């Protein structure tokens, strides 16, 4: 037994189905959303019994970890009702999270006391990133038990758990079966089997690009103007952790997608993960100093190299590319 991370991921799949769509659904998507639903429910439970920042933090991290296992699966149920942004409103290029939260707190908006009303609150005031603000940002996190902010933390956690539960159910009942019956009569979502593979392949490549361009690219900024405070979830010191967890999840999806050997892809994932795990810079604060900045740039290049390897091996094997029009633009 090797200790390579991808092999470890594969070993966790109890009953490997035929590689491809089936394995991606049964070995990656469904268990990923089950885990997220379970951790989000635990977070809601934890916040209900102790909504202070200290009380909510451990379960917040567990739920965020679970989200990183599925955050790249941005198609299907997560596209309904704005759920994708209601769970993960990042990057927040216009600073809408703090302004929305500040308004909710200043008004003591009664939506926090009612889950149906809270589902109508702006997506910028919901989900993991709004929660992170409340329990980690200096401007919010000092709230008392029994305060409005404390009730808001419980409301966000409860809302998150409800959405996570809905996602797991819908993947189980409709979205998973839709992928598995791609091309069959009556399947209006995937008109051919290739379309299901295309959707999964696009999720894989989009996830890699998001990590390279946003999770790493935003704090890197430019050499003359690095932007460490644009790192993802730096308040909770999750920036690097999210990169690692997302790469692990994407590696699992890559392995599921094809039976063909993908040595370049595996090697590229391992190189990127090795670089990330050896980086002792949890919030990418080092982007401001040339030597430590270089390490983040190297990590970004390693992630981009994964995209190239995936295109050359998995894309070529499946006969798919990323969106013909989505990647063109004019």
């Amino acid at each position, binding site marked *: 037994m090797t200790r390579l991370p991808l092999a470890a991921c594969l070993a966790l799949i109890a009953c490997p189905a035929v590689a491809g769509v089936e394995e991606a659904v049964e070995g990656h998507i469904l268990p990923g959303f089950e885990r997220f639903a379970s951790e989000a429910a635990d977070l809601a439970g934890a916040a209900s019994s102790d909504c202070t920042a200290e009380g909510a933090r451990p379960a917040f991290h567990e739920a965020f970890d679970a989200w990183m296992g599925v955050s790249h699966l941005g*198609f299907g149920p997560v*596209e309904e*009702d*704005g*759920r*994708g*942004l*209601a769970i993960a409103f990042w*990057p927040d*290029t*216009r600073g809408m999270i703090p302004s929305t939260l500040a308004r909710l707190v200043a008004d003591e908006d009664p939506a926090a006391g009612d889950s149906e009303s809270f589902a109508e609150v*702006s*997506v*910028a005031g919901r989900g993991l990133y709004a929660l992170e603000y409340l329990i980690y940002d200096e401007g919010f996190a000092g709230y008392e038990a029994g305060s409005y902010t404390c009730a808001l933390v419980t409301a966000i956690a409860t809302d998150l758990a409800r959405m996570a539960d809905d996602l797991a159910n819908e993947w189980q009942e409709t979205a998973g079966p839709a992928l598995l019956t791609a091309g069959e009569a009556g399947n*209006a979502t995937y*008109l*051919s089997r*290739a*379309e299901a593979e*295309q*959707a999964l392949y*696009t999720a894989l490549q989009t996830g890699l690009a998001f990590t390279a361009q946003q999770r790493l690219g935003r704090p890197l900024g430019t050499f003359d103007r690095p932007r460490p405070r644009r790192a993802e979830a730096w308040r909770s010191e999750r920036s690097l952790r999210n990169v690692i967890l997302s790469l692990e999840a994407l590696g699992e999806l890559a392995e599921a997608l094809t039976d063909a050997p993908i040595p370049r892809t595996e090697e590229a994932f391992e190189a990127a993960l090795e670089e990330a795990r050896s980086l002792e810079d949890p919030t990418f604060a080092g982007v401001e100093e040339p030597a430590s900045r270089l390490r983040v740039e190297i990590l970004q290049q390693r992630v981009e190299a994964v995209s190239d390897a995936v295109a050359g091996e998995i894309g070529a094997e499946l006969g798919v590319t990323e*969106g*013909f*029009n*989505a990647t*063109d*633009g*004019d």
Partner: protein
Amino acid sequence: MPTRRGFLASLAAAATVPQLSWADAGAPAFLAAAREADGSFALFGLTEQGADLFRVSLPDRGHAACAHPHAPEAVAFARRPGTFALVIDCASGSLIRRLEAPEGRHFYGHGAFLADGAILCTAENAYETGEGKIGLWSRDDGYRRMGEIESGGTGPHDMLTLPGDILAVANGGIRTHPDRGREKLNIDTMRPNLAYVSVSGGVEEVVELDPGLHRNSIRHLAEHDGQVGFAMQWQGPLPDPAPLVGLHRRGGAPVLCATDLAEQMAMDGYAGSIAMTADRVAITSPRGGRVHLFGRDGSFRASVRRADVCGVAAQRGRLFATDGLGGLHRIEGDALRPLRLAEARNWDNHVVRI
């Protein structure tokens, strides 16, 4: 020595030589370009059900085609910053003329016909100064270059012909230079506009949005009953909820159309095509995998999901969409009804109504 009478008779005979029409190309409802399974590119004429009527090979990936109003002639433009356009006889499949952009100019993706099809107009970049130009070509004279007029802005992309031989031009505002490919050189200072221009009157009206939206590149156009719809592409940081479609009537103020924050951001700041009917305005986002439908008053109606959807066109009061997976769909209410899936093809950016 021909007699005067004989000369007149021969003129009359010439006048009655039947002119070819789109019926001679099978009366297509649409033109669309695609990449085929072997990596080659072609332009197709399609029925309203999506069946092929003709196929003409293209040398490379095109951007858009523009159709002559009567004759079965299509002009296929190279992708930006291409310097050639092909005038194609869709009845025979033969090349009528290869148009070369003049020195210092390149084409910018779209074109339109004026004067009942006598003049072809092409969106062009005078790249040393960055001025947008509309090239004029005489069809009756073998598509000879006649001259050019100002586009009214920088980076003209799409254009369409309005009654009275007015051109509506989407000046995207983005300056590029062929030495630097598609690199955008003026994002911080770009100022897109919707301009109305004519050959006789020049730039007749220019519509700009609020300064806060100066990074919203106006790129594609549709028109119905005197109302122009313009589709935009956000050039600022993403995600962003900037509106991606606006409606305008000559002399009036533009109406911007958007929906709720999450659904708006899901378009990924990008509208690829626009079409209008008597009661609907449709924009596509291949990046967001969505069609957004609005009423003609600008109110949001529906979001319809389809991966890589980009082409959209109105034909006989109905909306049709094409996607990069080979699908052609009719938009019915708030759903897509697939008419045909050409699995071996990737339909390119635009589908054009004949």
